[in-house]
Every structure is written in structure tokens, then in C-alpha cells.
């Protein structure tokens, strides 16, 4: 069977931050020297194309949506297929006066400038740029180049007046315009039509603003139009809002809208998606992301979307590998079937970045010395635990040669039961079976690590060596690929998460609910939606597994 293609959709600014890192991670990780053959089938997410001049292109099979003014120096149609038209000579089909209104020209940052000029984009990896201070919008660190149909801008709302596209109903209303009902839907169809063995959709969406509604409508449409094709959705919550005062507070306008958007979004995803995985780098994502999740050897600033979205992207790129491999016959549909027993649709995700293994250690000793859980939850309000789970782990960056010390040098290893395992996969599975209870686990592993080449943030501390392992001496060279472990989990923790969202909705003031209703949703519908959340928690009760 050939490649089983996936179409990716990204709705909203934070989703596009994540997406940008995700495409960057993949492209900077492509092996171009021809010696290494990848275990990953890149054609699952990318497509080959052809310009009118006969030039071959390789671009993400992607549609993204963002608001007007959010693109920075990226042009909507891009310049991959044809050069931008010069306004001074552009054909207007008009014989009388023409007035030109030019927005202030956006200036490319140094990274974009060099990427634009260089003949060999891979030279960029060796350089470093001050992304932390210069990234304003996601296109500022975009390494990939897009197909002309990829970028879709909503002209009704402006990015700069960030407070205007803030309610679910605004999004569902927007979906009903010709731009989405016709143009956007057609673009989805154009992608799907090309695929010989289309397996389904990846949809990353901002779940706390108007994009929650837009994407929900889109997902409903896809469900009807592409019945039987699985939809894996990732509702995401930004790592920080500028209104975060650092104190605990009751939800009140305008941030109570976030909670209501989330409620409506989860409700819609539960109805129309196949499986969805809420993601956030803050532990309490509902009104405010709050405490950021810490990772060993990483110093990141959660106020920078550029940082937090990189962590989520690395996780996404990793736990999605199972159905993107050349050798496996596992598909999105299998994943959805595996996770949706007892009409469960919500899945939690976790990651360990970097997967810290000492330079001089074997995998067996690494696991032997491991303390605490292997990964950290990146699903808000969800502590995964070690009990009654159904889970899938993906480990990359630990080659089989690191499994154990085959020679008899290390006596201690020989006495460990795990020494009988003959592959990384087997050993990790064994470890999981020992540390989790009443749990069904499966493991995928890939020898090569995740690419953290520029423009990925340089937020790893010095003890992470050039090969991604933990070293005693500080790193001299730039990082390239590093080990990472990511997981998807289903269990009673999910019920707790939904429960916590439900109780958050109960704290919202009547007045705010009224305001939300004014954006185009009946009051009754709002309380029905909140009630359905509560019903939802039931299918995650323990006794069902």
C-alpha cells in the first residue's frame, strides 16, 4: 500500500505558531544527503507539486486560517509558484484613475532576509538569530514554504485588535460566508482529490477565541462531506494571555468567554471529530494557563508563544509518528478506533523533551534510574497517573545500539529482568508493564531524534550535548536531533479534566453568559451545552475499562 495521505488544517494564531514549528521540525529534519533513508513517510503530510514552469515543489498538504494583519512579511499566496506582482505595473483593467493604498511595508527580520537570499537554505541551521526578541507573528520564524492555496486570511476581523474575534458564535457565523462555505471547502476537496489513499484530517485549532466556532463548523462540514474519514483534532490553548495578573480569579468578562468557547468547542468536537487532544503548556488552561509545565534541561519563557508552541509541536510531531511510518500499516483510523472505546473521544497527551539519557548510559540503565513518570502531561487539568490507562508512547532518538551493554562489563545490568529484552520497543514496553497497572500500552520507536535545528528555540541548557544526550561538559556545537518521548493516554483522568471545565462554567456570572448569548447563541443552548459536558464525564469513569 502506498502513502496514506493526511490533510492538515490550522485555525488561529497560536495554532499557527505550533504549526509553523511543526513544519519547520519536519523540514529541517529531512535527510538531504541521500545516505540516510528515513523511517518516516514524509509524503503523509507533504505533497509534491509542479509549477507552471515545470518546477517541482514539496509543500505541506495544509490549509491555515488567521486574521487580517497576522501575516507579517508573509504574502498570502506566497511566491513559490509565481513571483509577487509589482503594484506599480499591475494590471487593473481600468482606463481611468487608480488610487493605490499601501499598508506600511513589513520589514523582513534577519532570519527571513537571509532565508530569502540564500541558495542553500540549510546554511541557516548554523546561524543563530535573536528570535526571542524578534518574533512577533509566526511567519517570522517560518522555514517552510507554502502552496498558494495554504494561507487563508479572514478579512472581517483584524489581528491587531485582538479583542474582536472572541466568541464561538462569531466563528460559526463566519463559516457561513462564501469564503469558507465555497472557497475554503473547495480547497479541502482539491487536496483530498489528489490523494490515492487518503487517511484523514489533522486539525489544530485555537479553542479559546472565535476560531473555536469556525473550526467546529468546519469539522462538522468535514464529517458530513468526508464521512468515514477520521478527524483528529487538537484544540489548543495559548501559554499566556496579556491579561494574566498572576492571581487566582473567578472567570469574569472578557476572559469568561474563553471558558464558554472551550465548553462549546469540546461539545462540538465530541459530536463531530473522531478523537481530540486538548493541548496547553500551562497546567490550568481554562481562564488562564497559569503555572507553566517545567521540563528538565529546558528553560523556556511561557510568555513567548515562540517557545511554548515549540514544545507542543515537538510532541505532536512525535506522538503522530505511529501512523506516519513507512513500515507500519497502522492508520489514523486505527488510532481512533483504539481510543474510542465506550464512546470516549478525548485523549490526553504528554511529552518528555529532551528524553534525558546520559551520554555514557545505556537505555536499560537510563530506565533503571528513572524517577517519577516518564512524561509530563500537556493536557490542561489532567494528571495522567499510572493506573487504568490505554496509552501509546512514541520514543525517538535512541538507536538500538544503545539498548544495553552486550559485553559482560556491566554485571548489574545482566541481573535485571529487562536485560532479556532485545529491542528498544520491547524494553520500553516491559518497563511500562511494570510501572503501570491495568494498563494497555503500545510503543513506537524511531532511531532518529526530533530536529531542533534553527529556527527551533535555543532553550536547552548546556548539559544537553550536541548529540542530544546529557553530558558532563558543556555543549560546544549546535544541537541537531535530540531524543524525545511522547504519549497519548485515555483514562479516568480525562473525566476529571472535563469535570474541572464544567465546574469552571458554573462560576461564570449570569451577566457574562448573557453577553455570550448576545453574540448569537440562545441562553438555553448555553446551559444545555454545559450540561452535556457533565454527561460526558460519565464515559470516563473507572469501572468501564
Amino acid at each position, binding site marked *: 500500500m502506498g502513502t496514506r495521505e493526511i490533510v492538515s488544517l490550522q485555525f488561529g494564531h497560536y495554532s499557527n505558531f505550533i504549526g509553523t514549528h511543526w513544519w519547520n521540525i519536519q523540514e529541517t529534519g529531512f535527510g538531504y544527503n541521500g545516505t540516510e533513508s528515513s523511517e518516516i513517510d514524509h509524503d503523509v503530510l507533504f505533497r509534491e507539486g509542479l509549477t507552471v514552469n515545470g518546477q517541482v515543489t514539496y509543500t505541506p498538504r495544509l490549509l491555515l486560517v488567521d486574521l487580517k494583519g497576522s501575516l507579517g512579511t508573509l504574502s498570502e499566496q506566497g511566491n513559490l509558484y509565481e513571483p509577487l506582482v509589482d503594484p506599480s505595473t499591475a494590471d487593473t483593467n481600468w482606463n481611468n484613475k487608480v488610487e493605490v493604498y499601501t499598508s506600511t511595508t513589513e520589514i523582513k527580520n534577519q532570519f527571513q532576509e537571509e532565508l530569502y537570499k540564500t541558495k542553500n537554505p540549510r546554511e541557516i541551521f548554523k546561524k543563530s538569530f535573536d528570535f526571542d526578541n524578534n518574533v512577533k507573528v509566526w511567519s517570522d520564524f517560518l522555514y517552510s514554504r507554502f502552496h498558494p492555496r495554504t494561507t487563508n486570511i479572514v478579512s472581517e476581523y483584524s489581528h491587531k485588535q485582538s479583542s474582536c474575534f472572541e466568541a464561538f458564535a462569531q466563528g460559526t457565523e463566519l463559516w457561513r460566508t462564501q469564503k469558507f462555505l465555497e472557497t475554503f471547502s473547495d480547497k479541502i476537496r482539491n487536496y483530498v482529490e489528489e490523494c490515492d489513499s487518503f487517511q484523514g484530517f489533522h486539525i489544530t485549532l485555537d479553542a479559546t477565541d472565535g476560531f473555536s466556532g469556525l473550526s467546529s463548523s468546519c469539522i462538522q462540514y468535514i464529517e458530513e462531506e468526508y464521512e468515514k474519514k477520521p478527524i483528529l483534532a487538537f484544540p489548543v490553548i495559548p501559554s499566556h494571555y496579556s491579561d494574566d495578573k498572576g492571581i487566582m480569579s473567578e472567570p469574569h468578562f472578557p476572559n469568561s468567554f474563553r471558558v464558554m468557547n472551550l465548553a462549546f468547542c469540546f461539545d462540538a468536537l465530541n459530536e463531530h471529530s473522531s478523537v481530540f487532544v486538548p493541548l496547553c503548556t500551562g497546567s490550568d488552561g481554562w481562564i488562564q494557563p497559569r503555572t507553566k509545565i517545567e521540563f528538565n534541561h529546558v528553560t523556556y519563557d511561557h510568555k513567548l508563544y515562540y517557545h511554548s508552541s515549540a514544545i507542543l509541536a515537538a510532541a505532536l510531531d512525535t506522538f503522530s509518528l505511529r501512523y506516519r511510518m513507512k513500515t507500519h500499516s497502522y492508520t489514523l483510523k486505527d488510532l481512533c*478506533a483504539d481510543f474510542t472505546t465506550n464512546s470516549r473521544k478525548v485523549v490526553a497527551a504528554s511529552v518528555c523533551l529532551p528524553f534525558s539519557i546520559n551520554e555514557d548510559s545505556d537505555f536499560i540503565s537510563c530506565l533503571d534510574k528513572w524517577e517519577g513518570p516518564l512524561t509530563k502531561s500537556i493536557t490542561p487539568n489532567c494528571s495522567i497517573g499510572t493506573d487504568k490507562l490505554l496509552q501509546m508512547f512514541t520514543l525517538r532518538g535512541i538507536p538500538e545500539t544503545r539498548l544495553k551493554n552486550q559485553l559482560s562489563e556491566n554485571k548489574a545490568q545482566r541481573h535485571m529482568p529487562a536485560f532479556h529484552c532485545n529491542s528498544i520497543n520491547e524494553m520500553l514496553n516491559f518497563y511500562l508493564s511494570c510501572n503501570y497497572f491495568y494498563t494497555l500500552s503500545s510503543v513506537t520507536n524511531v532511531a532518529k531524534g526530533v530536529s531542533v535545528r534553527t529556527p527551533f528555540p535555543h532553550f536547552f541548557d548546556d548539559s544537553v550535548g550536541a548529540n542530544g544526550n546529557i553530558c558532563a561538559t558543556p555543549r560546544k556545537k549546535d544541537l541537531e536531533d535530540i531524543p524525545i518521548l511522547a504519549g497519548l493516554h485515555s483514562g479516568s483522568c480525562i473525566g476529571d479534566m472535563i469535570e474541572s471545565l464544567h465546574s469552571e462554567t458554573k462560576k461564570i456570572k449570569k451577566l457574562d453568559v448573557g453577553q455570550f448569548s448576545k453574540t448569537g447563541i440562545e441562553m438555553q443552548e448555553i446551559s444545555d451545552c454545559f450540561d452535556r459536558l457533565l454527561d460526558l464525564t460519565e464515559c470516563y469513569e473507572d469501572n468501564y475499562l
Partner: protein
Amino acid sequence: MSAISLLNPKAEVARAAQALAVNISAAKGIQDVMKSNLGPKGTVKMLVSGAGDIKITKDGNVLLHEMQIQHPTASLIARASTAQDDMTGDGTTSTVLVIGELLKQADIYVAEGLHPRVLTEGFDKARLKTLEILDNMKIPIEINKDSLLDVARTSLRTKVHAELADVLSGICVDAILTIRKDEKPIDLHMVELMEMQHKTATDTQLVKGLVLDHGSRHPDMPKRVTNAYILTCNISMEYEKSEVNSGFFYKTADEREKLVKAERAFIEERVIKVIELKKKLCDGTDKTFVVINQKGIDPMSLDMFAKEGIIALRRAKRRNMERLALACGGIAMNHLNDLQESHLGHAGLVYEHVLGENKFTFVEECKIPQSVTILMKAPNKHTLAQIKDAVRDGLRAINNAIEDKAVIPGAGAFEVTAYKELMKYKETVKGKPRLGIAAYAEALLVIPKVLATNSGFDAQDTIVKLQEESGLNPEPVGLDLTSGEAINPKDFGIYDNYVVKKQIINSCSIIASNLLLVDEIMRAGLSSLKG
């Protein structure tokens, strides 16, 4: 665009007393930006984004929305213009101009101490009278090529240069007349608009059939067939693992393999059914067979079709199912039980055209096509978008004329006549509301005035000239934009839609009245999103 920043967004907090002044200045502000758009000598706007994307428009409504309006007054006017566009597809610039002018006129009277409510009373009287005048000016039309061409041309020449406008007018009229059946209302969706980035705008053409934006996905399928049966269907012809057979946790490889076989056979049967019909109808004749499917067709099924010389297209647009049946005959099938010849459509010619990575399939030479395609061509994206907007306007204008069974003389003729009649009517009205009527009459004149200014003529001179001529002449009197002289628009085929004018008359006086009665507008503005 920055022009709108003239409008002070803090206006929300303005007290009622100041609010009227604020409303008036806001309406004037928008009017100033939009003025230069009006008519065939107006200015086209090119909007260039920070990254260099180009958008070209001359449409009032598009422009208004590109301006990112925050001001509640302005957004109310913008909503009126959108409503105008939704309902009639035209007249949005005029709407904004007339609202602005009504407020300017009102300003003068209010400054002299007249209560706004008295004025709005007059506006309403004037509105009713003007509708009457409009009805009297209706010119009934025969629905034929010539009469429709006039309307289409008038509309399109305000959007693109004359040469292109004339090409597009011909195409639009031809398209509509082809799909029109008896007296039945026309479904504009049955005119498919297809973009092809290729050649130039004047190469845009009408295809009396369908153009699909995809082609066959099998190297051995024919690229061109004649005398073809067309099977339109919405039936999956791709193997898909069923729900029961998915998931790895609970099944063995063996179990899965068995299920796969059974499921595959099921899809194969569908393909075989189609092939059997094809064999029965086509083998031994010069007839050919084309399958157009809304669902997927996988490589194995494509291969089976290719071996039989059948062209099979997958993932057709949902709406094309209906269009295909109307263009070629036959029925869109949802199942294959009892598939027969009578279910199939027919096309004299089906062929593929490839442009880079894009494929197009032409389904042509249909006997009585009730669905057609306008194939728009242009060398770049922004021109394609511009043409698409223009074609939509043209189609709407023609359709309006057919529904109205009448047109209105353009070039300012209607407004000049309305002014004359309203001033007479004013004399019959008692009390202060007559001031509102006079203001209304004066405001309508903004249309011929701006048409004159945009063509380089003096507004006052022109109005005087037109009014003198109109005083002597019972025929409608409009403005010739080339000479600046009075003409009868009928002699030049300058016609506007009745329904467009009617909508302008109604919405302008209502919106202007709302803006004058500030209390109401304050509420309207604030109910937008936040309180």
C-alpha cells in the same frame, strides 16, 4: 487603510447631544472615501498589503469592509451597504453617498434648531413619494439579448474597462439566457464560475456545459472522448477499513486480513456494476463512458475503469452533482441497484486540459444545457478575483432585470426627476416636515453631482444644466460623462436595476433617520458586541 481613522473611535462615549454631530461627521468621513468610486469614470482602488498582496476593487461594499470599521456609526452604514449588496448585488456606493448627504442636509436644519424627529418624518414622506416616482419611471423590457446587454454593460462598465466589460456582458447574458427556462426564476448557482490562471482577462469564455477543476488520476485513462455517457454519482469506490476492522489493541493480524478481503470485494462489485453497464451500452458502438463521482475512487478501481477505457473522476464538487444532471441530463445516483441507461447523461465531448499541477475537465456539447460555466481567465490571482467580482455583479444585474421585467434610466436621470417631482410634492405638504422632503430631494442629487465631479465637470454647473433640460423635457434627463451635456440615457442604453434603486431609497432614509435619532443609534452601536 487609514482614511477611516479620521473617525474618532471614542465616539461611543459621546453624549447624546454631541452624538448627532459625531454621526454626521462619521457619515461625511465615509462619504469622502467612497465618493471617488462612483460610476464608469470613478477611481479604482488598489489595496496593497504589507507583504505585497494586491487586491483591486471598485466596489463600495468591498472597500468599506477593507477599512476595518470600529466606529459604531460607520459600522451601521457599512451594514446597510452589506444588506444592499446581499439583496441586490449593486448600489452600495450610492447607498453610502446618499446616507452621508441626507445627514449633511439634516445638519443644516438641525443647526437652525429644527428637531431631528420632524426631519425624519419628512424623510419618510419623501421616501414613499420617491418610490412612487420610481414606479412611474419604470421602463418595461422584453427579456431578450439586447435589452439585457444594456443592463449588463451599464453595470460592468462601472467595474472594468469598456472592452473587457463588453466581453463579460456578452458572456453573462448568454449564460443566463441559456439556462433560463420559460418564466421560472433563475438559480444563479447553475452558472458555475471557474477560474483558470492563464492567458488574459478577455479570453474569459462561456462553456455550455461544465468545467471541473480536476482530471483523471490514472495514466492510462483517455484524455479525450466523444459521444459520451455521463454517470454522475455519490458512491464510494475506494477501499476503506471499516470501523469494526480498525484498531490494533483487540485484534490479531489474521482476523484483520480476512476482513480486508471481504470489504474490498464489496467495493469491487460496485465498480463491476458500472463496467457491465458500460459494456452493454458502448461496446461495439462509437459511444464512450465517463464516471463523475462525488466520493473517492481508489487506484485499484481506477485501474479497472482504465482497462475499459472509461474516464473516472473522483471527489467532484457537491454542487456539481446537480449541475451535471442539469447540463447533461441523467440523475445523480446514490446507489447502483438497478443502474440503467436512463440514469445517464450525455455529452458530445469530454476532455482534459492540464496547466502545471492543475487539471481541468471540460464536459461540453450538451444538448440542452441548463447549467453552464463561465471560465474566467487572467494571468494572475488578483485579476481573477477582480473578474470574478465583476462577473457576479453582471449576473446579478441581469437577473434583477429579468425579475423586475423593467429597468430605470441611469446616469443620474432618476435622481434629477425625483428631485423635480419631490419639490412639487413638497408644496402639497403642510408644516415643517416639508423641510425634510426638501432635504431628501437635495440629497438625491448627490448622485449626478458626484458622477459629474468624477468625470471632471463642475457639480453645480452640471446640476443646473440637467435641471433646465428636465424642466423642458418630459423624457428622462441624464448626464453624458464624456461631454458633460444632458442626454436621454435611453439613447445610450444606460439602464440601472429597478430593485437596486428601490432598495437604496428604502434603506437610506431608514438608516439616516436612525442616525438622526441619536438615542437609538447609541443603542444600536453598543449592542454590537461588548457592553
